[in-house]
């Protein structure tokens, strides 16, 4: 892949759906879908670690010719053992940067967070997206510089969203 090419968010989501991967959209794209105006250059997804889902995920990353974004420039491809054991997979694919996560924040998994999602319709595609309050919690728990940098925008977005919901109920 041309390393300068930007990520194709819908293309990646459609590939995940086509391979029937059980996943939640998390991170910056989840925040943006929830209305927070922030920029991100990769798609973060939280995946379910059932054996069947790992098979589907492996099939997807093979189709997308994914490899790890290795600072040393080595060509390392994801495999079943890595998907099963590692928490974070920062991949470069034919459709841009895709981060596969088996846990986020303080070790929370797909199973932990599946109940805190919203089903969004994106054209003909339907994807499960982590709700903004849970995105905020995960970033507070991760507490890296890049997480702290976006928290004010995320918190203000949640306040305005709740205000709109409150007004709609009145």
């Amino acid at each position, binding site marked *: 892949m041309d390393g300068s090419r930007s990520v194709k968010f819908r293309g990646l989501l459609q590939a995940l759906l086509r391979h029937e991967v059980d996943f939640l959209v998390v991170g910056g794209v989840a925040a*943006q879908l929830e209305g927070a105006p922030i920029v991100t250059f990769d798609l973060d997804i939280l995946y379910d670690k059932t054996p069947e889902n790992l098979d589907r995920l492996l099939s997807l990353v093979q189709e997308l010719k994914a490899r790890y974004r290795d600072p040393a420039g080595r060509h390392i491809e994801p495999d079943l053992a890595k998907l099963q054991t590692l928490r974070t997979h920062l991949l470069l694919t034919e459709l841009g940067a895709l981060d596969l996560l088996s846990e986020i924040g303080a070790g929370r998994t797909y199973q932990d967070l599946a109940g805190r999602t919203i089903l969004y*319709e994106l054209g003909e595609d339907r994807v499960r997206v982590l709700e903004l309050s849970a995105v905020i919690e995960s970033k507070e728990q991760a507490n890296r510089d890049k997480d702290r940098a976006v928290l004010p*925008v995320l918190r203000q*977005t949640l306040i*305005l969203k709740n205000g709109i919901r409150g007004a709609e109920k009145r």
Partner: protein
Amino acid sequence: MGTPTNPEPEPAPSPPAESPDGVDLTLIRWTLSLTPLERLELLQDWVDGLAELRNGRISER
């Protein structure tokens, strides 16, 4: 002497443009007014635009 008319109601104060910690609330209100698909397309436009800038290209969109 005619019937006194009711005075014009005071206009509602404009919502603040900025939060106390400096977040642009106008931008958030705008993104919240979009559909989820429009929000994703907006993000894609931002990312594509930044990639073009990084590569030194001028968009003709």
